[in-house]
């Protein structure tokens, strides 16, 4: 049941308890309880919105940074990952397979700011062997949503 509720919320965090109750056939009180529980145990981390900032002229610089790391005894990649994710500039931090180890998404106001962060904060961390920075040029799709130019298909208004 909680999985059904979470799927609905992941798709639209504004769905009300009452709506979820109807959509899943679960009493409202139970839905409230389950959501509260999920919030408490951090299954639900937060409620957010997907925004196309370009529409309001807000300049943002996004960069994906490949980070190659020397894993450390006992803690592997975790302690270095932690040193990186503590920076608020690091929006997302993943450990990945392949030619590099950590993938870090940085969001800043200017290219300069992001470059500074990488060279001053990130690269010098002990255990980091090297970084490759990819500045993002265009966001086409974010969290399953196409940002621009999504085609709307017209249906016949009545079909028997």
């Amino acid at each position: 049941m909680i999985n059904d509720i979470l799927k609905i919320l992941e798709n639209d965090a504004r769905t009300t308890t009452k709506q979820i109750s109807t959509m899943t056939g679960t009493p409202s009180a139970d839905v409230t309880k389950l959501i509260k529980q999920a919030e408490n145990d951090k299954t639900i981390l937060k409620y957010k919105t997907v925004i196309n900032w370009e529409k309001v002229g807000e300049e943002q610089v996004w960069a994906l940074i490949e980070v190659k790391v020397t894993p450390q005894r006992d803690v592997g990649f975790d302690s270095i990952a932690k040193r990186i994710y503590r920076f608020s500039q690091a929006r997302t931090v993943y450990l990945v397979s392949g030619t590099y180890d950590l993938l870090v998404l940085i969001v800043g106001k200017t290219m300069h700011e992001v470059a500074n962060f990488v060279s001053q904060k990130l690269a010098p961390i002990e255990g980091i062997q090297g970084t490759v920075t990819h500045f993002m040029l265009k966001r086409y799709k974010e969290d399953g949503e196409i940002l621009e130019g999504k085609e709307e298909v017209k249906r016949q208004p009545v079909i028997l």
Partner: protein
Amino acid sequence: MSTKPKIQNRKYSLTSQRVNQISPSGIRRFFDLLASMEGVISLGVGEPDFTTPWHIREAAIYSLEKGYTMYTSNLGMPELRQELSRYLKNNYNLDYDLDSELLITVGVSEGLDLTMRAILNPGDEVIMPDPCYVSYSPCCILAGGIPIMVPTNQENNFEISPTDIEARVTSKTRAILIGYPANPTGAVISRKKLTQIAEVARRHQLLVISDEIYAKLVYGVEHTCFATLPEMKENTIFLGGFSKAYAMTGWRIGYAAANREIISAMTKIHQYTIMSAPTMGQVAAIEALKSGEDSAAEMVEDYNRRRLVIVKGLNNIGLPCFEPKGAFYAFPSISSTGMTSEEFAERLLIEEKVAVVPGTAFGQYGEGYVRCCYATSLADIEEALSRMKRFVARHRAV
């Protein structure tokens, strides 16, 4: 809107008696009205609001790049029949020989037309539920048959009653036509009832035409494929397709599975009138069968949420609605307003800009109901419900 051709004292009708027997859709005026309006929320459609999953579309595009642009075998591409035969085996444990017992058709619509033409002699009767899908009765008439309607209603969950069927069997009865999950009611039928229908068919040596286009769209119940009932495979013309479950309505691909004699007769008609189902659509159908399960299951999950919203909503605003457990339709009773179905649909459209389909479009026993399709966005469903609430409150019969 209607333009009547001016014909001066013609001795004969320009069109055949047979086609003249079919009445044009009684709600043409309603369609015309709808076409002229803007800002309408339509619960009047009969197809998914999803576009075909991209991996299926992509497979079709690739087939064009590779040059799959020609006719296929009359029966349909061997690979598609192969996949289909595997699918029917896996899902229903049914063994259909892919070279003699399966035919790929232009949707279930063609499958139904072929069936009627293949099995009916002039004056043969086909027993079917009322209300039912719009083409059942015309297809029967066009094939020279006589449709015999069995009323169904909300009290019996729009399940056709085996006793009512049997009461209508005559020496002319050739077949029973059922279509569950049902358009327009969203009804499903229990295995028990189907078993009883099978008994009636056996007792009177009748064929059963089973339209199972909505088979995958069931909620909390299991769909029983009619051909899986004891001894029924030989006597069933099983019609299915890809339109609803895989959101592929425009591709026009369906199939018929039946014994070789019937499939061979249907193929004769098919080869002279259609040749073969669209090639691009057949390629897409192969992809749907091979890897469309997940997308289909996701869509079903989504429909189910909207189903619960619309059914509860309709009941709350005073349009009592039995729980439809299949397809994507709710079929509420509008009797509290004292209006006829057509009147209700027309006034709702004019006053609140919500389009629903009058139940009478699906047979005389659809009177007192309207069909609301919930294959539309949740936001639209909720807005439509709040407009309908206003409408019902305003017109509640005293």
